[in-house]
């Protein structure tokens, strides 16, 4: 194992929740609303959760077979040396790309909404710098810091939603299933890919100190984030209606603009940056940690920390080349390519690996849940 840290099952659950929800709560509502209309919350709560549970089951099954290795470490064992290493390298590249997407999401949001005159590069350097600091400290510290960040995240969103609750018009959410189940399924495409990020369990499993509770925390994460994301989506659409919500870039940001309490608390969109940064730093740190562990294990290095810095620089450059500050390019990727990309990486390939491992009898041979 490259990182000596130990995390508890509760910590794992909270970390995975952060990975799934940190960016999703802001970006998903408008994308879902375009396809699923008033039933968006059903897509998020039902279909996406089911997909997330499937990913969680496969990941836990794989984790149980190889309890002390991360995904890329046992690929060569399952597939044979050359194909295994190749797939591991491919995964590393894919994850570097995914991390660049998160970096892009972050700099576009902060740059276009809050720090208009700060160059995106500076924003990236700060956020990535904080995340890389977290990676250097190790997964155990990340999990512990997340225990402080998680309540901030949840409390802030809850307060935000509670303060706009009086603006909700239930007619915006009715009628339920007016156009049949098809829009609900279509709407679930994008959020499902996000929920599949529970896949990071494969890279955190070795650090878990109570391995028999892995399924509980993974499933708990998927369910918790299902309820959470559905609430955010429902409130957004309840306030704006699906038509308006789907035409906004950040509908949740506009929710915050609706808040007015006793004439003192007004224009609280800055409040959102607390929620956003809290989540994104943790999410980025987990992504960078996974990338660097993958890279180090693929290359056969002893210390994963040496790979963090080049990977961080690479992601900043890649996100700059891919998106600059162009939200449309980003949202095009997120709504058109990311689902299929995500399904392949999160569900299909790990599923196949599990199948091969079962057939070739690799790893621990018990698959019980």
């Amino acid at each position, binding site marked *: 194992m490259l990182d000596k840290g130990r995390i508890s099952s509760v910590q794992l659950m909270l970390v995975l929740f952060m990975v799934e929800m940190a960016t999703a709560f802001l970006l998903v509502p408008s994308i879902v609303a375009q396809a699923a209309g008033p039933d968006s919350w059903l897509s998020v709560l039902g279909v996406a959760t089911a997909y997330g549970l499937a990913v969680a089951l496969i990941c836990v099954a794989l984790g149980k077979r190889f309890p002390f290795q991360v995904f890329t470490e046992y690929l060569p064992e399952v597939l044979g040396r050359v194909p295994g290493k190749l797939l591991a390298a491919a995964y590393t590249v894919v994850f570097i790309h995914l991390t660049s997407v998160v970096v892009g999401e972050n700099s576009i949001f*902060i740059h276009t909404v809050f*720090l208009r005159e700060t160059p995106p590069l500076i924003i990236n350097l*700060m956020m990535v710098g904080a995340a890389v*600091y977290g990676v250097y400290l190790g997964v155990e510290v*990340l999990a512990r*810091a997340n225990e*402080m960040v998680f309540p901030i995240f949840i409390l802030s969103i809850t307060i935000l939603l509670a303060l706009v609750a009086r603006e909700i018009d239930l007619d915006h959410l009715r009628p339920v299933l007016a156009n049949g189940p098809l829009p609900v399924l279509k709407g679930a495409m994008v959020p499902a890919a996000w929920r599949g990020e529970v896949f990071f369990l494969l890279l955190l499993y070795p650090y878990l100190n109570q391995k028999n509770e892995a399924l509980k925390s993974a499933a708990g994460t998927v369910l918790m984030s299902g309820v959470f994301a559905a609430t955010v989506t429902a409130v957004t659409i309840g306030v704006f209606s699906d038509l308006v919500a789907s035409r906004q870039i950040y509908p949740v940001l506009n929710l915050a603009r609706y808040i007015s309490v006793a004439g003192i608390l007004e224009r609280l969109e*800055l409040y959102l940056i607390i929620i956003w940064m809290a989540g994104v730093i943790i999410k980025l740190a987990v992504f960078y940690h996974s990338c660097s562990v993958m890279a180090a294990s693929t290359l056969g290095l002893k210390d994963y920390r040496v790979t963090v810095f080049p990977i961080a620089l690479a992601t900043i450059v890649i996100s700059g080349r891919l998106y600059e500050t162009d939200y449309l390019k980003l949202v095009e990727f997120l709504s058109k390519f990311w689902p299929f990309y995500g399904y392949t990486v999160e569900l299909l390939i790990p599923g196949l690996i599990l199948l091969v491992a079962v057939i070739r009898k690799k790893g621990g041979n018990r698959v019980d849940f």
Partner: protein
Amino acid sequence: MFRKPRRPKTMEERKQRQIDAKLEAPHPDSQELNIPFGLSLDDNLALFKNLFGNASDLLVREFSFGARQEIRVALVYIDGLSDTNSISEAILKPFVYRSLSDDKSPILPESAYPMIRDWLITFGSVKEAARINEVLDYVLTGCAALFIDGTSQVLIVVVKGWKARDVEEPKAEAFVRGPRDSFNETLRTNTALIRRRIKTPRLRFDTLKIGRMTKTDICVVYIHGLTDPALKDEVISRLKRIDTDGILESGYLEDFIKDNPWTPFSLLDRTERPDKVAGALLEGRVAIVIDTTPFALLVPAVFSEFLQAPEDYYESFDYIRAFRWLGLIIATFLPSVYVALSTYHQEMIPTGLVLSMAAGREGVPFPALVEALSMEISFDFLREAGARMPRSVGQAVGIIGALVLGQASVAAGIVSPIMVVIVSLAAVASFMIPNYSSSHAIRFIRFPFLLLAGAFGLPGIFWGILVLLLHLASLRSFGVPYLYPVAPGVPGEWKDVFFKAPRWMMDFRPSLLRARKIRRQAPGQMPGPPGGSSGEGDDPQIVSTGREKQG
């Protein structure tokens, strides 16, 4: 006289020799002094005097006794460190009486030593030593050494007694309710103050000597069978690693035994209050008491502890703990949040307030960041000057500070009135943190946060908070995570973090200290009206049975 030093054999030994040579003072275990005395009294005394270079505080009293004055003896002690009354009563007088007694038979030289040791010296604590470095150590700590002609054994009479401060009220930790004694500069007094509170033989004091020149006594205090032995061993092994010329205060040790040397946050607690030490020991912590300083160290320490005052536990109802957290947040972030709001996010401030702020800032030539930084810096100047000045001058500093920083700078148009309010509020809030040394960290991190606020506004501040959280989460104090019990979360133990639960609810000791006995008290001691739910409880008989049980 001295044996020739052995030739160093290994590389490490040679290196150690070189370091020793550069540190000048011989190591207490060095070969040079680790040799026995000779048989001749004159040689021994000459050697001893020579070691001290005829220092004026080394007193050597030579005399002889016996019916014919046939046994020569010399008493050596350091003036001011030994109790002269005890010396004359317990050492000198018996010799005179023996010489004047009716027993005129001569004392044989070989029987003189056991006779003096066994029944001539009328003092409780007598020890024997033969080696030069042992005797040196004893004499330097205030014992009297008795050299007897014809033997290489030296009798040590522990007649330590020097001028020490009385046990007084704690100077650095103010409070309203609670015991008023505090440690002083004498190790024995301090250990006695602890022993007086915890009357069990399982209270242990393991003593070490640290410092080549100061040879300071360091006492590691713990309760045997309650404190995690691994923790105690870790403390002792970290202390034993220290090799320096002197330990003058607990702070010297602190720097050597911290887990993370590069953090402004203090990873150990220190106190001059024996009740606080006793409380910590009962939780399963380890205390380090140091001779020559009234400040004892407590390990391990976690962040939330610095917002706990001993008085919290003496007052039964207390909402102040929550206020301290608020104070901590205000002390750290209020000035930077103000800078961020007034520079970048005016739209978030209510209209009426923003107008009055604008009116106040009219004519102020500097941006808010410069204004805030200059106020903060001058406030730190004031605080430092006030703490270091003699009390008579300190008042003048206070008056000048109030006038210059408050009124005059506003009148002169250098700062806006609201900035004065903000900075003073933050300053007052920073005084709410009960632990002085840990408030240094808060004082320090205000400045990076001000710069972040000036550069990036609120997002910058929040970025800083997250990095700070990462840093705090990475800290450990003797293996215990610094943010415990919040992260890693042990919700059952939050009853002493954000508020203080009543004593009868705190049945268990903190679990991360791995105390051997986790239960502190019998469960279900919630007090209530006697006799249960019905009104019959007013029956005086039931009250009295309750009392009998307690007794």
